């Protein structure tokens, strides 16, 4: 089976000091290497989680996939078509099948549009239906995400945080996309809302046959939603595995550190904590070799050598010299 969505060596560098200094020819321009050669695949109907901490480049991957920003190099293929080479009109037609839900449910809604206008907008852009068909569709989609039609004429400021995130999800699925990129859809939500949105997303995937790329730093949420997990650190993937396997046998020291830092609601159940030293280095001066080297408690001399993902068990890939 060929994957629905795939990236190949996806790279995004943001040049630094590219303004007047570069124009005057002032030496080599350095860059923030936000995404540095990420290759991943998402099969039809599955949820792939892309996990990592702030600044690791996971949202940049999402934005590059949707071409909200242009990748520096690498390929993004969706349903066999290379999105990077599409002209703007062809890309726009493709967007109907590839939608996104953003992290901040408030900031990602236009405060001057009613719920109806918000949900109808993608229909207006991507479908040929009449106004009354769009109205019906907006009502249906709202019901699908668990909101009543009475909210159609409300503005975002009249909604609660959970309702806003549901409207965002409704907007994303209005055009019956095949794939939705979810960028931390639950991280701005409270405990009980988080649980509801997780269950809603999983239910929608099953009912509507959606494929998700789920971007998150919340490993517990990932465990509930994802079939496979890719762990990202400082612009590159360090581990990739089926979810159950990853939680049972995390191999990369970074994955193990992340898992051991998640607090568990059982008093006294203090697990062995793998502590990373300090904070992630800047994505400008990335050390050669393994990028975790400076923070890894297990680092050895060999870690200065370049390291690539390799398959150590079935479908379980890890990029670490010491595994």
């Amino acid at each position, binding site marked *: 089976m060929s994957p629905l969505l795939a990236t190949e060596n996806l790279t995004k560098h943001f040049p630094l000091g590219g303004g007047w200094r570069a124009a005057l020819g002032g030496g080599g321009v350095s860059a923030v290497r936000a995404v540095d050669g990420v290759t991943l695949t998402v099969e039809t109907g599955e949820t792939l989680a892309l996990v990592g901490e702030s600044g690791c480049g996971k949202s940049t991957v999402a934005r590059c996939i949707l071409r909200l920003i242009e990748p520096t190099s690498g390929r993004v293929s969706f349903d066999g078509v290379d999105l990077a080479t599409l002209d703007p009109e062809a890309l726009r037609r493709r967007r109907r099948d590839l939608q996104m839900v953003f992290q901040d449910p408030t900031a990602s809604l236009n405060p001057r549009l009613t719920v109806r206008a918000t949900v109808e907008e993608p229909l207006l852009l991507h479908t040929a239906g009449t106004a009354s068909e769009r109205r019906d569709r907006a009502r249906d989609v709202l019901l699908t995400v668990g909101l009543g039609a009475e909210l159609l004429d409300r503005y975002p400021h009249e909604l609660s945080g959970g309702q806003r995130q549901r409207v965002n999800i409704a907007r994303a699925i209005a055009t019956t996309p095949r794939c939705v990129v979810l960028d931390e859809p639950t991280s701005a939500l409270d405990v009980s809302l*988080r649980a509801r949105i997780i269950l809603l997303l999983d239910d929608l995937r099953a009912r509507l046959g959606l494929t998700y790329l789920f971007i998150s730093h919340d490993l517990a949420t990932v465990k509930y939603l994802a079939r496979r997990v890719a762990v990202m650190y400082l612009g590159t993937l360090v581990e990739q595995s089926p979810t159950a396997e990853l939680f049972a046998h995390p191999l990369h020291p970074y994955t193990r550190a992340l898992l051991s830092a998640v607090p568990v609601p059982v008093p006294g159940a203090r697990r062995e904590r793998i502590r990373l030293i300090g904070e992630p280095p800047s994505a400008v001066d990335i050390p050669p070799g393994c990028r975790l080297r400076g923070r890894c408690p297990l680092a050895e001399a060999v870690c200065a050598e370049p390291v690539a993902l390799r398959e150590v068990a079935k479908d379980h890939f890890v990029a670490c010299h010491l595994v």
Partner: protein
Amino acid sequence: MTPLLEIRDLTVQFRTPDGVVHAVDRASLSVGRGEIVGLVGESGSGKSVTALAVLRLIRPPGRIVDGSIRFDGRDLLTISEDEMRHVRGGQISMVFQSPRTALNPVVSVGRQIARLYELHQGCTSTEARRRTLDMLGLVGLSESGRLGSQYAHQLSGGMCQRVMIAMALATSPRLLLADEPTTGLDVSIAAQILDLLRDLGRQTGAAILLITHDLGVVAETCDRVAIMHAGQIVECGDVRSIFGRPAHPYTQALIRAIPRIDTDVAMEPIPGTVPSLLAPPPGCRYSGRCPLVMEACVLTPERRQLGGGHEVACHAVQVADVAAARD
């Protein structure tokens, strides 16, 4: 021995154009010396308002309507504003949720800490500077010489929170109010900050009231916990009792709503939403969401002792059953 902080029947209301918001309703809570107590609930449950009331930072249209807040034997609600200013920042300090916005953007972080030593302890600027460097070292910002002259926008979220903690501890307070100190931080950084709070609490003997909606954080950090719903404290006790034998239906629902990485138990959202505090239901405010609701719930349930300091305010809980479960 009397507890360090004892909140009794605290009632806070906000007058708004739409009516009176009953933000905190007869909440009682105590924090012992050197103890770490969690205050847990959903957004809008009144956790932060409770903390602000302790510092007497409730501003109009908000008002503390009733209750007492005894700190080290003194009622903070009756002392003069002048005395309160010494308590605030001196004996009780606070760590806020978004460290970057809580720090002054146009004053270097070192200067912000040093100012506390000058104000609260009458230090000379040289002395304040020396102590600031020590403090930055204590919170794990070791290259503190350079860091002290930096501004909030130059630091990461985790570093800003360390600076906030340094500021909060600079005056050797006896009580630290930490309002969601790790929300918005990455897991590994959050774990570092919680370790730091716990270690520093132990070293300095400061008690901590930790406000959070994350029960995992409570289980790993706190000695005792109080569960708050819509302005009412529904259950409190030591963490082992609360997590081992949660008695209140809301506590049970909260625990079931957490996605777990340690087990495969199903996750269930809490039914309903936090009721509007403009017109909360009479009696138990959880009654509208509660599967065990009965007629008696229109009356405010008394807090009952379940043994070992475990208290619950719920008509449906059979004390005998809980006691049997304990044995």
